[in-house]
């Protein structure tokens, strides 16, 4: 399931950023990665179907890093001016940054099989981070929603 979740997130968010980003070079990067990455990941599973049932680090790394880069690009594009989806983007960037580490460390923790409590703590941290992200999203939605109302 996780494979699908990560790929789905990558494709959807790549599409989202392809709408936001402006310069040719940035758009080209988004489009090329949007095609190359899924093809690469799927072909891996076709060549060795066993990989599909194992956890692997490469996939989450490859699917989140480009998103972090796109998000930073969008921040950079709108430096010093009013930005579309500013808070949503900040929330997303924040969550991608932190969750990547959480997942990587969690995997290490599972493999090492140390203390049970740390796992709970990490789950709680992840949930808190999700809430913070949704807080940003909610604020962004509020801004867009009320601005629309003003226009009408």
């Amino acid at each position, binding site marked *: 399931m996780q494979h699908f979740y990560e790929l789905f997130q990558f494709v959807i968010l790549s599409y989202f950023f392809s709408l936001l980003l402006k310069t040719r070079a940035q758009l080209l990067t988004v489009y090329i990665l949007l095609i190359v990455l899924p093809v690469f990941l799927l072909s891996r599973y076709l060549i060795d179907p066993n990989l599909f049932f194992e956890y692997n*680090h*490469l996939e989450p*790394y490859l699917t989140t*890093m480009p998103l*972090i*880069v796109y998000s*930073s690009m969008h*921040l*950079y594009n709108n*430096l*010093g001016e009013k930005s579309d989806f500013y808070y949503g983007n900040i929330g997303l960037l924040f969550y991608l*940054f932190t969750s*990547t*580490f959480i997942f*990587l*460390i969690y*995997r*290490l923790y599972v*493999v*090492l099989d140390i203390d049970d409590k740390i796992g709970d703590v990490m789950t709680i941290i992840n949930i808190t981070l999700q809430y913070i992200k949704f807080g940003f999203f909610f604020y962004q939605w509020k801004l867009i929603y009320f601005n629309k109302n003003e226009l009408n």
Partner: protein
Amino acid sequence: MNSINLENSEIIQGVFFILLAFISMFLVLILFFYFSRKKIVQIEVDKKNLEIEHQKELLNSVLITQEEERKRIAQDLHDDISSKLNVVSLNSHLLKTPNLSESEQLEITNNIIELTQKALENSRRIAHDLLPPVLEKFGLHAGIEELVEEFNSTKTVKVSYENQLDFESYPIEKHLHIFRILQELLNNSLRHGKATEISIQFTNFDNQKTCTYIDNGLGFDSSSEENQKGLGMKNIESRINFLGGNFNFTSKPNEGVKMIFNFN
């Protein structure tokens, strides 16, 4: 043995990817800051360039106005004085012609006297237009009062003037700037705005000398860029710059003009 090896390799893999994630995010951050700094500096440079461009435009408009003013003076001198003096000189030559009857002589001299008087009057008017003597002798307050009176005497417009400031302590070289600003505003209101009521107020607002100018003329869309580029407005702006003040100009079609400026 095999399972321990597998576990070990997974741990190494996990640590490796954590490290990789760290390094890549660090790289993203560094690149982001590097490019941001560059962009911010570029934005600052653009802003400064825009300011310089604006200053250049102001300077240019000052030069253009100066040239136009010269042209106007030249025209005034040519039309009102040179032409009259020309006729005077012709008439004087006529006086030299022999066998003139007394009545003819009288007519010519009367002509000469009349024309020289007109020329004198015109030269006085031109001088007065260039720099009202009242302004120099009695200061800005009297100068504005005279200006307002002149406009009121045309009967097409009613100008009210109130002053709560003491201009005597104000540097005399700045009086002329304020006078010219008001002159320009009044001329614009009359010529373009067809205003019938104008109010000029000098007050001390927040410890700053402030002038409020309101008319009830046709007005125009002050937010449109074309209207802000007029030579008159540029002139007013550069004069207010000289005075070290700020100004706020608002106008809408059919709602007159309101201009507030302060000076130090």
